[in-house]
């Protein structure tokens, strides 16, 4: 069974005084556990919209979206939020760390929505996770005082702290220089492999895309296999 699966998914939005805008058109995509998938595409092609669907933040207009075989649109919204919290970790282009909160508080945040030992042991778990991304010495640093690469490492720690099955990264290196981007991606790859999580990376950088097992291209809402990208690893 796929971890998450889109079958013939269309996503349209209604625009006042105009025809509905089709952002995604007949998308089929299944992500298997532990698999690494990349999606490339031009700006405005619908990449973020696709990622929001994979992350259960958005619902398809038509077609099916299933998480571990369960229909996502049929879930009650509270359950959808909890399934997302327990299974999906997001990494954003602009890091999206909480301002004014220390690195440790940022990484602790997802554990606030867990229960049991993960909730009660959240500070220790978060500190361990920051240690794994090489920031064990910057626990009390505020995002503003961290470099871009360090901020993205905090974001990686935050995305992985609940040990999710699926990591969704939307242009994770978009705000970093090439070298820092590569080292952050190496770190992300390593941790994802250790945790045996699936990773979906959205990027416009073929070198980043090449790190994945399967490659897709999104062009004006249509998803196709990208045979021209060759896996490097």
């Amino acid at each position, binding site marked *: 069974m796929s971890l998450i699966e889109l079958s013939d998914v269309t996503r349209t939005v209604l625009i006042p005084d105009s025809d509905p805008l089709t952002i995604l058109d007949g998308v089929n995509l299944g992500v298997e556990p532990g698999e690494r998938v990349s999606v490339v595409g031009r700006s405005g092609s619908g990449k973020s919209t696709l990622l929001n669907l994979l992350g259960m*933040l958005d619902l398809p207009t038509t077609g099916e979206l299933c998480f571990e075989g369960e229909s996502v649109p049929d879930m009650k919204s509270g359950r959808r*939020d*909890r399934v997302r919290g327990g299974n999906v970790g997001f990494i954003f282009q602009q890091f*999206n760390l909480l*301002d004014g909160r220390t690195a440790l508080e940022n990484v602790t945040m997802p554990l606030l*929505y867990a*229960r*049991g030992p993960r909730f009660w042991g959240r500070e220790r778990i978060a500190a361990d996770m920051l240690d794994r991304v090489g920031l064990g010495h910057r626990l009390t640093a505020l995002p503003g005082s961290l470099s871009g690469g360090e901020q993205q490492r905090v974001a990686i720690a935050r995305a992985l702290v*609940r040990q999710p099955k699926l990591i969704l990264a939307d242009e994770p290196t978009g705000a970093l220089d090439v070298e820092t981007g590569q080292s952050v991606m190496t770190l992300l790859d390593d941790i994802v492999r250790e945790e045996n999580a699936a990773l979906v990376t959205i990027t416009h950088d073929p070198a980043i895309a090449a790190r994945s097992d399967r490659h897709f291209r999104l062009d004006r809402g249509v998803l196709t296999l990208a045979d021209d990208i060759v896996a490097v690893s």
Partner: protein
Amino acid sequence: MGGFLAGIVGACAEAWQEVRIHKGRVLLSLVGVAVAVCALSGAVAMSAIAQQATIEQADSAGGRAATLTMSMQSPDTTATGRSQATQAWFDVLDRYDIAYATRVLWDQGRVQFPGSVQDVNLQVVDQPYAEMHRTRMDDGSWFQVGDSSRLAPVIVVNTAFWELLGSPALDSHPSVAIDSLGGAKAIIVGVYGTSAWDTYPSMYMLTSHFEQLVDPARAAQSSPQYEMWVPPDLARDLQGRIQAELSSALGSSGSVSVDRTDWGAQMDDPTSILRVITLVIGGIILLLGALSLLNIALVTVRQRIREIGIRRSFGATSGRVFFAVMMESVVATFVAGIVGVICAVLLVQSPMVSDLVSFGGISDVPPFPVSAAVFGLVAATLVGALAGLIPALIAVRVKVIDAIRY
């Protein structure tokens, strides 16, 4: 349910973080809330203390709740008639197992003070009187249970009386000669407290001593009141029965009246107008504090739409977001409420203020009433919840995908 607890604790932890981060902005409106809570719970506390003082003063005159006072007019005004009435009263006490009861007789006495002979007030009572009227002792002690069998009469006097004697130490067993009771020497065992303006000398004496010493002709002129202290919920029932029983004991030509005299318990609080005014003012300040808190919360919640989107994408349910935003106001006003209550306690218990509200001293100075503290905290928390409601409603309407788009 572990998940439920984790949810509550988590939301409070989130809220506390939020308050900490925005403390500069939040502080000012919280000062208003703290001041209002201080005024509110201070007003409630002061009125409780004033009420206590009033009740004590009333009790010292009319007895505690519930006191039944009987006066009996026997057709036979001789000593036999009087003892018949007294016997009927004792029978009633026995039958209903009433432990606290006293006879009360007002008389005048003439006492030899050093250098002068003066008239004094004399109240003739039984030993339980002090308990029933909350008589407060400044020095020495009230009559003991065995005192009525002592040969020498003992008396308890007020400060004015004691000062006329030159304020002697009580353990030296000072005594006075009472001319009106055949020059009997009475030993002073205690000095009771009254208000400062009670300057006329007064004394208490036990009924048994008085009856041994008093001239029978004089005794015939006055008849005592009979008081008993009964459970308030039985008072009405007992009143009727005792009335009937005493009437039949005295026969048709006697007259008996049984009344509740503990008017203190039934009296209105004389500070109620002051309290209402303080409550209204405090309420207005509290509302203003809430409004400025609401204003700040509205501004910050708009700035935090992105943050709420991020939290939602990491698994926060909309219910959780609602609760957490609401708790921010509640946590803040609760802390302000605690500060306000502490200020109120310090203020009300400062000697100046407690003297002011207690009309110059009461026997049980009540501690800061718990009800007033609880009232202040509840008011603060409610206001916090009200101020948090609107931002919380805005927070749950945040569209996650719009909030995290950049």
